Protein backbone atom coordinates (compact mmCIF):
# COMPACT_ATOMS: atom_id res chain seq x y z
CA UNK A 1 0.00 0.00 0.00
CA UNK A 2 2.22 2.79 -1.26
CA UNK A 3 -0.16 5.20 -2.89
CA UNK A 4 -3.22 7.04 -1.73
CA UNK A 5 -6.68 5.66 -2.15
CA UNK A 6 -9.64 8.03 -2.21
CA UNK A 7 -13.23 7.01 -1.60
CA UNK A 8 -16.30 9.24 -1.91
CA UNK A 9 -19.77 8.74 -0.50
CA UNK A 10 -23.07 10.57 -0.67
CA UNK A 11 -24.96 10.53 2.62
CA UNK A 12 -28.69 10.74 1.87
CA UNK A 13 -30.91 13.09 3.91
CA UNK A 14 -33.15 11.60 6.60
CA UNK A 15 -32.51 7.98 5.60
CA UNK A 16 -31.59 6.05 8.72
CA UNK A 17 -31.82 2.73 7.02
CA UNK A 18 -28.85 3.61 4.85
CA UNK A 19 -26.80 5.44 7.45
CA UNK A 20 -23.81 3.27 8.18
CA UNK A 21 -23.30 2.15 4.60
CA UNK A 22 -20.37 4.49 4.02
CA UNK A 23 -18.64 3.60 7.29
CA UNK A 24 -19.38 -0.09 6.69
CA UNK A 25 -17.82 0.09 3.25
CA UNK A 26 -14.68 1.83 4.54
CA UNK A 27 -14.44 -0.69 7.34
CA UNK A 28 -14.56 -3.58 4.87
CA UNK A 29 -11.97 -1.95 2.68
CA UNK A 30 -9.51 -1.32 5.53
CA UNK A 31 -9.97 -4.85 6.82
CA UNK A 32 -9.16 -6.23 3.38
CA UNK A 33 -6.05 -4.03 3.23
CA UNK A 34 -4.85 -5.64 6.44
CA UNK A 35 -5.08 -2.54 8.65
CA UNK A 36 -4.97 -3.42 12.37
CA UNK A 37 -8.45 -4.26 13.78
CA UNK A 38 -8.23 -1.59 16.49
CA UNK A 39 -7.62 1.10 13.89
CA UNK A 40 -10.37 -0.20 11.65
CA UNK A 41 -12.78 -0.10 14.60
CA UNK A 42 -11.85 3.48 15.51
CA UNK A 43 -12.34 4.66 11.93
CA UNK A 44 -15.69 2.84 11.70
CA UNK A 45 -17.00 4.34 14.96
CA UNK A 46 -15.82 7.89 14.22
CA UNK A 47 -17.19 7.81 10.70
CA UNK A 48 -20.56 6.29 11.63
CA UNK A 49 -21.18 8.96 14.26
CA UNK A 50 -20.33 11.63 11.70
CA UNK A 51 -22.56 9.99 9.13
CA UNK A 52 -25.48 9.81 11.57
CA UNK A 53 -25.01 13.46 12.49
CA UNK A 54 -25.22 14.41 8.82
CA UNK A 55 -28.48 12.47 8.50
CA UNK A 56 -30.06 13.72 11.74
CA UNK A 57 -28.85 17.29 11.88
CA UNK A 58 -27.82 18.37 8.40
CA UNK A 59 -29.97 16.82 5.59
CA UNK A 60 -27.11 14.59 4.45
CA UNK A 61 -23.90 15.54 2.70
CA UNK A 62 -20.72 14.03 1.31
CA UNK A 63 -17.84 12.07 2.82
CA UNK A 64 -14.38 11.81 1.30
CA UNK A 65 -11.97 9.29 2.72
CA UNK A 66 -8.28 9.19 1.86
CA UNK A 67 -6.29 6.16 2.87
CA UNK A 68 -2.51 6.49 2.80
CA UNK A 69 0.18 4.32 4.40
CA UNK A 70 0.42 6.77 7.33
CA UNK A 71 -3.16 7.72 8.06
CA UNK A 72 -6.83 7.62 7.21
CA UNK A 73 -8.41 11.01 6.65
CA UNK A 74 -12.17 11.48 6.65
CA UNK A 75 -13.75 14.73 5.48
CA UNK A 76 -17.47 14.99 6.21
CA UNK A 77 -19.10 17.95 4.56
CA UNK A 78 -22.69 19.13 4.75
CA UNK A 79 -24.71 22.19 3.92
CA UNK A 80 -26.93 21.90 6.97
CA UNK A 81 -27.76 24.50 9.60
CA UNK A 82 -24.23 24.62 11.06
CA UNK A 83 -23.25 24.39 14.73
CA UNK A 84 -23.71 27.54 16.75
CA UNK A 85 -21.50 26.69 19.72
CA UNK A 86 -18.98 23.94 18.99
CA UNK A 87 -17.67 23.81 22.59
CA UNK A 88 -21.20 23.18 23.81
CA UNK A 89 -21.93 20.62 21.07
CA UNK A 90 -18.86 18.65 22.21
CA UNK A 91 -20.14 18.40 25.80
CA UNK A 92 -21.23 14.86 26.66
CA UNK A 93 -25.03 14.71 26.76
CA UNK A 94 -25.64 17.87 24.75
CA UNK A 95 -28.10 17.15 21.96
CA UNK A 96 -30.68 18.99 19.93
CA UNK A 97 -32.09 15.75 18.50
CA UNK A 98 -35.90 15.66 18.53
CA UNK A 99 -37.93 12.94 20.29
CA UNK A 100 -38.58 10.85 17.18
CA UNK A 101 -34.82 10.56 16.70
CA UNK A 102 -34.31 9.62 20.36
CA UNK A 103 -36.88 6.88 19.95
CA UNK A 104 -34.51 5.30 17.42
CA UNK A 105 -31.72 5.19 20.01
CA UNK A 106 -29.87 8.30 18.86
CA UNK A 107 -29.53 11.70 20.48
CA UNK A 108 -27.48 10.68 23.51
CA UNK A 109 -25.22 13.64 22.82
CA UNK A 110 -22.14 11.41 22.72
CA UNK A 111 -21.47 11.44 18.99
CA UNK A 112 -18.98 14.27 18.63
CA UNK A 113 -17.19 13.02 21.73
CA UNK A 114 -16.95 9.51 20.28
CA UNK A 115 -15.57 11.03 17.10
CA UNK A 116 -12.97 12.99 19.01
CA UNK A 117 -11.99 10.03 21.19
CA UNK A 118 -11.59 7.67 18.27
CA UNK A 119 -9.62 9.98 16.01
CA UNK A 120 -6.10 11.31 16.44
CA UNK A 121 -7.02 14.70 15.02
CA UNK A 122 -10.42 16.29 14.62
CA UNK A 123 -11.23 19.75 13.29
CA UNK A 124 -14.78 21.10 13.11
CA UNK A 125 -15.35 23.98 10.75
CA UNK A 126 -18.91 25.24 10.94
CA UNK A 127 -20.80 28.34 9.93
CA UNK A 128 -24.41 28.84 10.95
CA UNK A 129 -26.64 28.86 7.87
CA UNK A 130 -23.85 27.59 5.62
CA UNK A 131 -22.82 24.15 6.81
CA UNK A 132 -20.33 22.02 8.67
CA UNK A 133 -17.14 20.26 7.67
CA UNK A 134 -15.62 17.79 10.09
CA UNK A 135 -12.12 16.54 9.28
CA UNK A 136 -10.82 13.55 11.21
CA UNK A 137 -7.55 11.69 10.97
CA UNK A 138 -6.65 8.32 12.38
CA UNK A 139 -2.95 7.48 12.27
CA UNK A 140 -2.03 4.04 11.07
CA UNK A 141 1.42 3.99 12.66
Amino acid sequence: MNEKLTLSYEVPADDFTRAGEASGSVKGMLKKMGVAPDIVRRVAIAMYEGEINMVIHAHGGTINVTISPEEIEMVLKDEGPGIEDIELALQPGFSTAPDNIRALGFGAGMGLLNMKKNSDEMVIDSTVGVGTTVTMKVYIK
Partner: protein
Amino acid sequence: MTVKEFINLGIFEIVSEGSNPDRKITVPYCCDLLSIAMGRMPAGAAWVTVMSNVNTLAVASLTDAALIILAEGSVMSDEAVSKAKEKGITVLAAKLPVFEAALRVYKELNA
Protein backbone atom coordinates in the same frame (compact mmCIF):
# COMPACT_ATOMS: atom_id res chain seq x y z
CA MET B 1 -17.63 -19.75 24.07
CA THR B 2 -18.35 -19.37 20.36
CA VAL B 3 -21.52 -17.95 18.82
CA LYS B 4 -22.47 -21.39 17.58
CA GLU B 5 -21.97 -23.04 20.97
CA PHE B 6 -24.06 -20.31 22.53
CA ILE B 7 -26.89 -20.66 19.99
CA ASN B 8 -26.86 -24.43 20.53
CA LEU B 9 -27.62 -23.96 24.23
CA GLY B 10 -31.11 -23.12 22.97
CA ILE B 11 -31.74 -20.45 25.58
CA PHE B 12 -32.86 -17.83 23.08
CA GLU B 13 -34.95 -17.85 19.96
CA ILE B 14 -33.02 -17.54 16.68
CA VAL B 15 -33.96 -14.51 14.58
CA SER B 16 -30.92 -14.57 12.30
CA GLU B 17 -28.26 -17.25 12.59
CA GLY B 18 -25.41 -15.15 11.20
CA SER B 19 -22.35 -16.14 9.22
CA ASN B 20 -19.72 -16.18 11.93
CA PRO B 21 -20.38 -19.31 14.03
CA ASP B 22 -16.82 -19.59 15.30
CA ARG B 23 -16.66 -16.06 16.59
CA LYS B 24 -15.71 -15.95 20.31
CA ILE B 25 -18.11 -14.14 22.64
CA THR B 26 -16.11 -11.96 25.00
CA VAL B 27 -18.65 -10.45 27.40
CA PRO B 28 -22.33 -9.47 27.71
CA TYR B 29 -22.98 -5.77 27.18
CA CYS B 30 -26.21 -3.85 27.86
CA CYS B 31 -27.19 -0.46 26.48
CA ASP B 32 -30.01 0.97 24.37
CA LEU B 33 -28.53 4.32 23.49
CA LEU B 34 -26.71 3.69 20.26
CA SER B 35 -24.02 6.34 20.69
CA ILE B 36 -23.10 5.02 24.11
CA ALA B 37 -23.02 1.46 22.80
CA MET B 38 -20.97 2.72 19.87
CA GLY B 39 -18.41 4.31 22.17
CA ARG B 40 -18.23 1.67 24.88
CA MET B 41 -19.19 -1.76 23.61
CA PRO B 42 -16.19 -4.11 23.66
CA ALA B 43 -15.41 -6.11 20.50
CA GLY B 44 -16.95 -9.58 20.56
CA ALA B 45 -19.78 -8.55 22.88
CA ALA B 46 -23.14 -10.27 23.24
CA TRP B 47 -25.13 -7.06 23.01
CA VAL B 48 -28.37 -7.19 24.97
CA THR B 49 -30.78 -4.44 23.97
CA VAL B 50 -34.44 -3.59 23.36
CA MET B 51 -33.51 -1.48 20.33
CA SER B 52 -34.43 -3.56 17.33
CA ASN B 53 -34.16 -1.26 14.31
CA VAL B 54 -31.67 -1.37 11.43
CA ASN B 55 -29.38 1.04 13.24
CA THR B 56 -28.85 -1.58 15.93
CA LEU B 57 -27.46 -3.80 13.17
CA ALA B 58 -25.16 -1.05 11.91
CA VAL B 59 -23.78 -0.42 15.40
CA ALA B 60 -23.29 -4.14 16.07
CA SER B 61 -21.46 -4.58 12.82
CA LEU B 62 -19.26 -1.50 13.20
CA THR B 63 -18.24 -2.31 16.76
CA ASP B 64 -17.60 -5.99 15.95
CA ALA B 65 -20.22 -7.33 18.33
CA ALA B 66 -20.41 -11.14 18.28
CA LEU B 67 -24.21 -11.16 18.40
CA ILE B 68 -27.30 -9.16 19.29
CA ILE B 69 -29.80 -10.39 21.88
CA LEU B 70 -33.17 -8.64 21.75
CA ALA B 71 -34.65 -8.65 25.25
CA GLU B 72 -38.09 -7.90 26.71
CA GLY B 73 -39.84 -9.50 23.75
CA SER B 74 -38.55 -6.78 21.45
CA VAL B 75 -39.30 -7.63 17.81
CA MET B 76 -37.36 -6.76 14.66
CA SER B 77 -39.14 -5.56 11.53
CA ASP B 78 -39.03 -7.91 8.54
CA GLU B 79 -36.84 -5.39 6.79
CA ALA B 80 -34.30 -5.44 9.64
CA VAL B 81 -34.37 -9.24 9.81
CA SER B 82 -33.58 -9.44 6.08
CA LYS B 83 -30.74 -7.02 6.55
CA ALA B 84 -29.34 -9.03 9.47
CA LYS B 85 -29.45 -12.17 7.33
CA GLU B 86 -27.91 -10.40 4.38
CA LYS B 87 -25.08 -9.04 6.51
CA GLY B 88 -24.57 -12.30 8.39
CA ILE B 89 -25.27 -10.80 11.81
CA THR B 90 -26.42 -13.17 14.55
CA VAL B 91 -29.62 -11.99 16.24
CA LEU B 92 -31.36 -13.86 19.05
CA ALA B 93 -34.48 -12.90 20.97
CA ALA B 94 -35.90 -13.43 24.45
CA LYS B 95 -38.88 -12.49 26.58
CA LEU B 96 -36.46 -11.99 29.48
CA PRO B 97 -35.70 -8.50 30.79
CA VAL B 98 -32.34 -7.03 29.78
CA PHE B 99 -30.62 -7.81 33.07
CA GLU B 100 -31.77 -11.40 33.19
CA ALA B 101 -30.83 -12.02 29.57
CA ALA B 102 -27.35 -10.60 30.17
CA LEU B 103 -27.03 -12.62 33.36
CA ARG B 104 -27.77 -15.81 31.41
CA VAL B 105 -24.99 -14.94 28.99
CA TYR B 106 -22.64 -14.13 31.85
CA LYS B 107 -23.36 -17.42 33.59
CA GLU B 108 -22.80 -19.43 30.43
CA LEU B 109 -19.56 -17.61 29.63
CA ASN B 110 -18.31 -18.24 33.16
CA ALA B 111 -19.71 -21.73 33.64
